[in-house]
């Protein structure tokens, strides 16, 4: 077996193990979908009336943002899952086996990707119920979902590094919340970035979450054709920018995560 196929087949064994857990502990998937559903309802019915998006129904605008936020939160499971495995000594066991060094991370990020697919399906149905519609071709729509998932997958590897470093699921959850919250709110997810004050506007314009949100909006056809073009390049070419972010994240995070894994031992 070559090193690459070994990494993939070992990764599949680990992914299967994680997915059995998703199946047997339904609280996990319920937990990660319940909050986004509440967000959809909250923004659609409570805040939505007060946020005006010129030329576009707010619910159409909202869904791509909620998707982006949800998959980023979904990606954070990678970190808490690894931290928990370290804490329980499972990583020690894995590391004492003659398996590929990247396999636990490949398995973990893959099962979290599957988890995100499930969450996105549930979210889409909720969106359709509150009046969200896709106005593009099926292929573009698929590309939109694909891009969201790809972005989340790349973020997963970053979460893996943090999870392996902190080694405690509780600490990880607190730490990741502090980072994910501003990243997903100081963006174009729930409001137009052009309405934000100075520095926050700049942050939002260059925020990777804004790029993937804008890309999803574009691919779902949830944009106002009459709206003026965005001020900055990333949001003028959101699909390309998202792909660039994905590559940048993977190039940086994958080797760092593997390095951190090689050193990871439980206390």
């Amino acid at each position: 077996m070559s090193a690459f196929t070994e990494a993939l087949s070992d990764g599949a064994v680990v992914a299967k193990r994680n997915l059995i857990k998703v199946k047997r502990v339904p609280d996990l998937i319920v937990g990660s979908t319940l909050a986004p559903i509440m967000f959809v309802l909250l923004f659609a019915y409570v805040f939505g009336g007060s946020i005006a998006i010129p030329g576009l129904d707010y619910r159409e605008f909202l869904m791509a943002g909620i998707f982006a936020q949800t998959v980023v939160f979904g990606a954070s499971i990678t970190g808490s899952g690894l931290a928990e495995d370290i804490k329980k000594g499972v990583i020690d066991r894995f590391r004492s086996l003659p398996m590929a060094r990247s396999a636990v991370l490949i398995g973990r990020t893959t099962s979290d990707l599957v988890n995100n697919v499930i969450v996105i399906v549930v979210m889409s149905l909720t969106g359709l119920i509150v009046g969200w519609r896709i106005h593009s071709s099926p292929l573009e729509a698929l590309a939109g979902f694909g891009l969201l998932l790809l972005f989340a997958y790349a973020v997963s590897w970053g979460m893996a590094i943090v999870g392996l470093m902190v080694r405690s699921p509780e600490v990880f959850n607190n730490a990741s919340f502090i980072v994910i919250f501003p990243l997903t709110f100081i963006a174009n997810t729930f409001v137009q970035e052009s309405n934000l004050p100075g520095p926050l506007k700049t942050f939002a314009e260059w925020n990777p979450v804004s790029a993937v949100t804008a890309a999803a909006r574009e691919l779902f056809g949830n944009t106002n054709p009459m709206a003026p073009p965005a001020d900055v390049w990333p949001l003028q070419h959101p699909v390309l920018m998202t792909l660039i972010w994905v590559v940048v994240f993977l190039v940086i995070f994958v080797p760092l995560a593997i390095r951190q894994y090689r050193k990871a031992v439980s206390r």
Partner: protein
Amino acid sequence: MARMADAIVAEGLVKRYKSVVALDGLDLVVPEGTVMGLLGPNGAGKTTTVRVLTTLLEHDEGTATVTGLDVIADAKELRRRIGLSGQYAAVDENLTGFENLDMVGRLYHLGKKRSRERARELLERFDLVEAGDREVKGYSGGMRRRLDLAGALVAKPRVLFLDEPTTGLDPRSRLGMWDVISELVAGGTTLLLTTQYLEEADRLADKIAVIDHGKVIALGTSNELKDQVGGERLELTLGSAQDAETAKAALTPLAIAEISRDERGHRLTVPVAGGAEVLVDGIRRLDAESVKVLDIGLRRPTLDDVFLSLTGHAAENDGADENAEEKQGEQGK
């Protein structure tokens, strides 16, 4: 260089964490097919030693080989030949016992069919057949440990590492684990076992390395270590403290060193040589003086005594509660 007959050879291992020296020039040789007990309190460096030898942690200085393979340079090949069962049962709560073992088999690259067969074999061997298809979260502590140990044996390793295999178990499960481990080593597996239970090392290990502050401070069989501390002694509890001086005078001819007396004056400890005859002689002498004795016995030093005399501190650190529990359990037998 490692001789072929040595399964584990460590020379001058040093491992430093930021400010702490976890291993401070540790030397260890474990011949093939033998059981080495690493005995020491929490923080002595037992787990660090196991982690270095199982490739989980890279040491800073020194060399270590297991089955002739270097733990750093040949790490991957080495992992095929060893089995590790860590300090806490590293089994997956949400998987069944079978799924846990099957997964480990797959990750040892045994293939689908062989992994399944091996998982069933091990469930049978460790008395987990009935529980094998249930999720581990319903298992008792003892069952989890047995499953974890089974996981370490999936690939029939030549060298097995057990890091505190019974810590946290109740006395009954501990005895069960001891039986399982004894059976295993009777089959010729080389075993490195760490423990903070002196009784455990005494019972399972051919040789014991006492470690403290990251160094081996004494090495030998349990008997050799006990001899190092000194010979036997007569211990007696008197009915009345007033008899203490009489008893002391009566027993002085038998003592090979000074007789010590506890604070309340009820208990005397008499260092002796000569075994059971001395005991009989002692009882006769006390009887002749009409000293009332509640309890008398001949004791060999325990590993507790060994530890105390070697390190200047008792073995019980953080494990104090568990040790206390264990002793209670022993008395209850």
